[in-house]
């Protein structure tokens, strides 16, 4: 039950955080681009729950959920969204480029597919330094059409790198549906053709995600080489805040909303789990988010005098 509660709390945290971000975007407190993870929470919560603190995570531009699940403090994530100097990247990364090496969160990445080689490199360094770590690398099914996906899967399999590739198949790459992106429909089959273990998981079922991540990380830690999970999921909201969603039917979205990963877990936890307990989680999360927003609002922007700092390392005189 404790395990269930932790997963539920994480998913609720991510969900409510994202909803608040949408509001803050509408009021122009958050600017730039904003890609929300609503609907896909089970993937981040389930996979990251199987990682050790020393394992590494590599993410995409849809990275808030991964960062929060990894333990990057919400205050630092929210401040980053606001572009404030207290953000995890001093406000310079923004929504798409959260980064916190101290939590071994090696970044969001605005370039589709851009994270895959980084993950393989982190893993190769782990191997070379004799550190028994796993690197979890999240990316969308759209990224599986990019060259980097193919280069890196081959490399990782060839050198048996300890990477857990987590393909978040939410059926759309921006406005392009899966069937218009991929001739071969089975991503797990495709991945296994590179010589690594791969299978598909119901990404709307956090317990199934967790169980698959457990099996995969166990195998990777035992020296079995990389694994790929195809996590079948769905984003409930638009691709980003500018998307008129012309490419899908409302009915399809509604259908997937019935598979809401939060509701499904709550159902599993009934009847022992009560509305009061759920209310308590919501209240706790809401306090955490209010605090993150309040501290982000009052924090400073990076001073203009720092505009040219950090481009290269600073040599102390």
């Amino acid at each position: 039950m404790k395990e269930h509660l932790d997963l539920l709390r994480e998913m609720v945290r991510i969900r409510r955080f994202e909803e608040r971000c949408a509001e803050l975007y509408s009021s122009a407190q958050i600017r730039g681009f904003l890609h929300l993870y609503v609907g896909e929470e089970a993937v981040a919560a389930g996979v990251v729950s199987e990682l050790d603190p020393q394992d590494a995570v590599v993410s995409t531009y849809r990275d808030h959920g991964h960062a929060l699940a990894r333990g990057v403090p919400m205050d630092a994530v929210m401040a980053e969204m606001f572009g404030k100097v207290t953000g995890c990247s001093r406000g310079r990364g923004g929504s798409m480029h959260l980064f916190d090496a101290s939590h071994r969160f090696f970044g969001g990445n605005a370039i589709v597919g851009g994270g895959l080689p980084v993950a393989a490199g982190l893993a190769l360094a782990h191997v070379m330094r004799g550190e028994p770590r796993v690197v979890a690398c999240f990316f969308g099914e759209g990224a599986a059409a990019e060259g980097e996906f193919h280069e890196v899967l081959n490399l990782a399999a060839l050198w048996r790198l300890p990477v857990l590739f987590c393909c978040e198949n939410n059926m759309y790459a921006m406005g392009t549906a899966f069937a218009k992106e991929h001739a071969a429909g089975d991503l797990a089959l495709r991945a296994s053709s590179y010589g690594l273990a791969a299978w598909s998981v119901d990404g709307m079922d956090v317990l199934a995600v967790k169980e698959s991540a457990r099996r995969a990380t166990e195998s990777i830690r035992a020296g079995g080489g990389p694994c790929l999970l195809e996590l079948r999921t769905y984003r409930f909201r638009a691709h980003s805040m500018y998307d008129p969603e012309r490419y899908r039917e409302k009915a399809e979205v509604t259908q997937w909303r019935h598979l809401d990963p939060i509701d499904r877990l709550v159902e599993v936890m009934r009847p022992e789990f009560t509305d009061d307990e759920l209310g308590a989680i919501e209240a706790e999360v809401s306090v955490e988010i209010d605090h993150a927003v309040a501290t982000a609002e009052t924090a400073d922007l990076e001073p203009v005098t720092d505009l040219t700092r950090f481009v290269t390392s600073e040599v102390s005189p």
Partner: protein
Amino acid sequence: MSAPKMTMAQAINTALRDAIAEDDSVVVFGEDVAQLGGVFRVTDGLHQEFGESRVFDTPLAESGIVGMAVGMAMNGMRPVVEMQFDAFAYPAFEQIVSHVAKLGNRTRGKVRLPIVIRIPYAGGIGGVEHHCDSSEAYYAHTPGLTVVAPATNADAYGLLRAAIAGSDPVVFLEPKKHYFAKEEVDVSVPVPPIGRAVVRRPGRDATLIAYGPSVPVALAAAEQAATEGRDLGVVDLRSIVPFDDETVCAEVRRTGRAVVVAEAPGFASVASEIAARVGERCFHHLEAPVRRVTGFDVPYPPPKLEHHFLPGVDRILDAVDTLQWEDEVA
């Protein structure tokens, strides 16, 4: 009688529509250009109007998109491809610089590649890095590429038509902050060809040289200077490659003073090239060294800091003030 008003997105859309209608070999493809009509709606309606064989979506595969355009162009087509944002063209960089740019030369002219690579570029929209890059120098530095950057909606139409109709590859840089700004556009009035700069505003005292998104900023600076008693001219390059030395130098020789305005970081930039060319060609006419007002040598900053990065009226006028005016010599 005035021409209809349209946004730059609509002007480009109209150019694509007219080109597709006129020439069966013209095809438009890229990520989300068909069903979605493009992130900026630039290709809106074209798929519906011309069908899947003329306007189609691709998977996420920038290198593949541009590389395929090479093969298609070798085989009688006129591909017009879209890179979704400036930085998303970088995965295709290898194709652009190694093949698109070089095949004509490599085959000693036996192969010509009528390819247009459309790239929404530059900032000013409250975007972030990767989405606001001014990447013109990479392309301009590569012999074999024509590099166009329209500043007006009429030019966006006319220059794109010329780019598609031409026989060489063109990197077509669309200032995305102009996409939704309306201007009168009469598509029946031809614009000067690619390679010709235009004097947008004559001036006696100094010449501002700009292209793409910096042209309206330069015009605003000239407007402001006029109220302060200084008469600044503005030259709009329209194309970076070919570079119109003649028009630029004629203006600078008249005024004896020049400031180049561009968003890209200044080091090793197109602005630097322009300053060097003008210096070499107009040396005896210059009253002061050519100044550059550019972005800083940093990655594009986030929305709340971008106004510090972008060349604005104040920075331009500050640069103009340093052009060694006689009345200021002590």
